């Protein structure tokens, strides 16, 4: 086994003697990567960050409905994050049973798992407080004239997301409490009778059900994947509408699809459990719902694609990221279909194919959308543009590298290579044909990391030195650009905005400019 290049030298001897990572440490990194990315990265950024900043501006509200609850949500997140990260320094290190924390493994794991559960309870509380605040804000604080069908798509998708967070997270909270009881109070909610660990019979009372954990977990975690994607779709819709300079194609189908998707996402969870032997009737049900739920996703994606038809597109940096989102999310979504059908999933489950599937959705999908959002709303937050040249280098570098990292995972997975293999598969006969991809993937991952330096530099440099932007930096129609200064002062708007129009009135014939802001009163020309 070779030491890890460059970083290996900096890892502690306890975790990686001589730069060669120990299996225990590898498992910690795997579990914590998933947890951190999902619960401490994407959700806080997409919902807590973008939702909190952009949504009140887009609906013409002075602030969130409950500023104190907002703060409580932030601090719950902060403490939860500290608990999670601090757990690396415990004896035995951080949680190492996967981000899914399957039982009985997780119940018998080192103390890091207890901290993981505590951290999760705090992070869940944070999301809960946030989501309630979002829903109240959208219902109660819309500006006069801003009816639901005039809301920007981003606001709609934040609303659906907030409902998912509100209703799907509590069951995981319940599950976390039960697992905590199993670990701390010695109960057996998830432990079957007569469980043997390392040759010893565990003296627990037994009678528990390991599948119960999986049901509770995925009841949250499938809606959670839509929490990860819907705000991203919202950002893409905003950036797209602004840069195609014409109304989005299919506003209503997108909205209705999102609502339908929200409902359906609560009845597909067991497609993560086809291999648990839960029975063919259950499988048939969840296969059917999974096929049904892919329809609204396709409707949304198709609407966004069709919006491009005949447009005179402005290829700004945010637009490049938004454009790349479309095919990348397409790949991620389409590769989900074979996973949703039990016959194919039996072969693909727990292989790199699954890793490829969801990373296409969340990395070049959601993450790219978040980049699009940062480049797009940066002028609103700072009054300055980010640098376009650096932005384009960042985009093209990331786009190429991220595909080299994730595409081979489909090949590896189809070849039968399992996920979570500590040695990358070199000891396993069935992985031999596909393990060779690990090298280029690894190199591309390093390169991908290097290209993020362009972004980090650009971000901080532009705060101070970027080109100044007018308050409506992109000639946009929505309220955050049309009615608020950049950066918005406390209370957001100098005077309360009033809305007269739909969200995306671009290139309306007869108007002097190619955009008509939502707060521009109706004139004779509109009749």
């Amino acid at each position, binding site marked *: 086994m070779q030491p890890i290049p460059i970083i290996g030298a900096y890892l502690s001897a306890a975790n990686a003697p001589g730069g060669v990572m120990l299996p225990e440490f590898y498992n910690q990194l795997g579990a914590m990567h998933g947890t951190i990315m999902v619960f401490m990265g994407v959700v806080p950024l997409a919902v807590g960050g973008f939702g909190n900043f952009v949504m009140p501006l887009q609906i013409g*509200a002075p602030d969130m409905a*409950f500023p104190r609850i907002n703060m409580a949500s932030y601090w719950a997140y902060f403490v939860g994050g500290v608990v999670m990260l601090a757990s690396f320094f415990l004896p035995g290190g951080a949680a190492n049973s996967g981000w899914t924390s399957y039982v009985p493994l997780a119940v018998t794991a080192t103390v890091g798992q207890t901290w993981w559960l505590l951290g999760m309870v705090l992070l869940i509380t944070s999301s809960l407080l946030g989501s309630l605040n979002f829903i109240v804000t959208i219902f*109660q604080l819309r500006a006069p004239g801003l009816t639901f069908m005039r809301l920007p798509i981003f606001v709609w998708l934040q609303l659906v997301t907030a409902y998912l967070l509100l*209703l799907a997270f*509590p069951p995981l909270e319940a599950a976390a409490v039960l697992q905590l009881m199993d670990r701390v*109070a*010695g109960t057996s909610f998830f432990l079957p009778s007569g469980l043997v660990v390392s040759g010893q019979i565990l003296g627990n009372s037994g009678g528990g059900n390991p599948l119960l954990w999986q049901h509770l977990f995925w009841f949250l975690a499938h809606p959670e994947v839509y929490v990860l994607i819907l705000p991203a779709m919202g950002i893409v819709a905003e950036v797209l509408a602004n840069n195609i300079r014409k109304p989005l194609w299919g506003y209503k189908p997108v909205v209705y699809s999102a609502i339908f998707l929200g409902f359906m996402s609560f009845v597909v969870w067991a497609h993560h459990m086809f291999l648990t032997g839960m029975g063919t009737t259950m499988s048939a049900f969840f296969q059917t719902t999974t096929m049904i739920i892919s329809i609204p996703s396709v409707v949304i994606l198709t609407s966004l694609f069709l919006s491009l038809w005949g447009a005179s597109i402005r290829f700004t940096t945010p637009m490049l990221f938004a454009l790349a989102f479309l095919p990348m999310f397409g790949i991620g979504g389409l590769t989900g279909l074979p996973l949703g059908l039990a016959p194919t999933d039996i072969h693909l489950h727990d292989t790199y194919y699954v890793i490829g599937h969801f990373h296409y959705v969340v990395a070049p999908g959601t993450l790219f959308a978040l980049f699009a959002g940062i480049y797009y709303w940066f002028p609103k937050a700072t009054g300055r543009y980010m640098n376009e040249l650096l932005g384009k280098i960042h985009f093209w570098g990331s786009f190429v590298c991220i595909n080299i990292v994730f595409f081979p995972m489909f090949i590896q997975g189809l070849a039968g290579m399992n996920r979570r293999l500590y040695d990358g598969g070199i000891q396993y006969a069935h992985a031999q044909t596909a393990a060779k991809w690990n090298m280029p993937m690894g190199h591309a991952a390093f390169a991908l990391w290097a290209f993020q330096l362009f972004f980090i530099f650009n971000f901080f440099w532009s705060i101070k030195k970027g080109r100044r932007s007018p308050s409506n930096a992109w000639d946009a129609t929505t309220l955050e650009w049309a009615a608020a200064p950049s950066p918005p002062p406390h209370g957001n708007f100098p005077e309360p905005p009033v809305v007269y129009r739909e969200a995306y009135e671009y290139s309306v014939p007869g108007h002097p400019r190619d955009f008509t802001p939502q707060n521009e009163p109706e004139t004779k020309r509109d009749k």
Partner: protein
Amino acid sequence: MDIPYTVTARPDTGLYNGKLGIWLFLASEVMLFGALFSSYLLLRVGAEVWPRGETILNIPMAFLNTVILISSSVTMVLAWASLKMNQFQKARWCLIGTFLLASGFLVVKFFEYSEKFAHGLAPKTNTFLAIYFTLTGLHGLHVVGGMVVMAFLFGPGAKMWRVAPERYTNRVEITGLYWHFVDLVWIFLFPVLYLL
């Protein structure tokens, strides 16, 4: 620009912000307890033997607690109604009464718990006791949470009545909604754990 609809209802939704907020919060609470009740069902259906609650638990004590909680819901409503009729002192006593009833509930619960522990019955004894302690413990925490809010309302928070009586009344109303929910959860817990 101030945040609108903190006190008065927004015409098209018919709610002020706090009220919508508490309804949403309760919806999430329904999911929390719903998940635990479902877990209870699944564990019970899968169990080879499942003790009947009455053989282990103390029904008279639980019945007493049911009466206490239902009375506390009544005093809670009275507090709000008195505020609506501008009788602040009466409302304050009703809140204190609710608080005392809630403490009474916890005292009874404490005796129930200690009786179990004295007989060596703990969460780890069997799955029935595990779910019993988890559900009632979580419910007890909700009671404590409600008591903290009530203590604030008849204690330091009562000052608001003089400057913003409507807002204060709303706060009591919202606390009431939460309290009725806590009551309702117990009304489910009692038969499910003790009688069935």
